[in-house]
């Protein structure tokens, strides 16, 4: 069975600094994709970034980038130049391509310190 593990329940970072959120997953599939979702206090789930497993190049979206280590089954999220609006719960998710089943980690709550 597939699992997604986020080992940091909470993290804090100073505004304008860089922070990295960790995620590991376990799967025997070869065709899958990975996501990071952000959930602010409004509870809306917002897609931050996505990575398809067959792509070696790490995805980037403005201040957000990932470090995808396929052999290690690791998918960390780096947020550069942290802003107050980045404060939220961040969820790592795994999706398998053959049937689109998506499972989530338990989340990391990120605090931004002014």
């Amino acid at each position, binding site marked *: 069975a597939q699992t997604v593990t986020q080992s940091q329940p909470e993290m804090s970072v100073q505004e304008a600094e860089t922070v990295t959120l960790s995620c590991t997953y376990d799967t025997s599939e070869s065709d899958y994709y990975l996501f990071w979702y952000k959930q602010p206090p409004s509870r809306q789930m917002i897609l931050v970034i*996505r990575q398809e497993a067959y792509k070696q190049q790490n995805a980037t979206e403005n201040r957000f980038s990932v470090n995808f280590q396929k052999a290690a089954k690791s998918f960390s999220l780096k947020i550069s130049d942290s802003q107050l609006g980045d404060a939220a719960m961040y969820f790592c998710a795994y999706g398998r391509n053959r049937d*689109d089943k998506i499972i989530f980690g338990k989340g990391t709550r990120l605090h931004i310190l002014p």
Partner: protein
Amino acid sequence: DARVTQTPRHKVTEMGQEVTMRCQPILGHNTVFWYRQTMMQGLELLAYFRNRAPLDDSGMPKDRFSAEMPDATLATLKIQPSEPRDSAVYFCASGLQRTGGRNGYTFGSGTRLTVV
């Protein structure tokens, strides 16, 4: 912007009552997910559908929960009878088959259910 619409946004009910949550997926999306979010368990996949047919409902307690898609524009999640431990936020998400990796999935705003 296209959005997934969930109703109601909040629901407070008494233990033993039936609860129905509704979801209108984005037009054209053929894959619909139901998730339950609690502090302890995080986001749990309850069930998901493709082209209105259930693909996997193994995460759902079968004795009291049921999920259906009466048509392509409506997904429902019912709890009967409800119990206090069902208190959670229930999310619906939709996407297009086999493009989820490229486009991601769109979530609704969730239904916060409180069973007293």
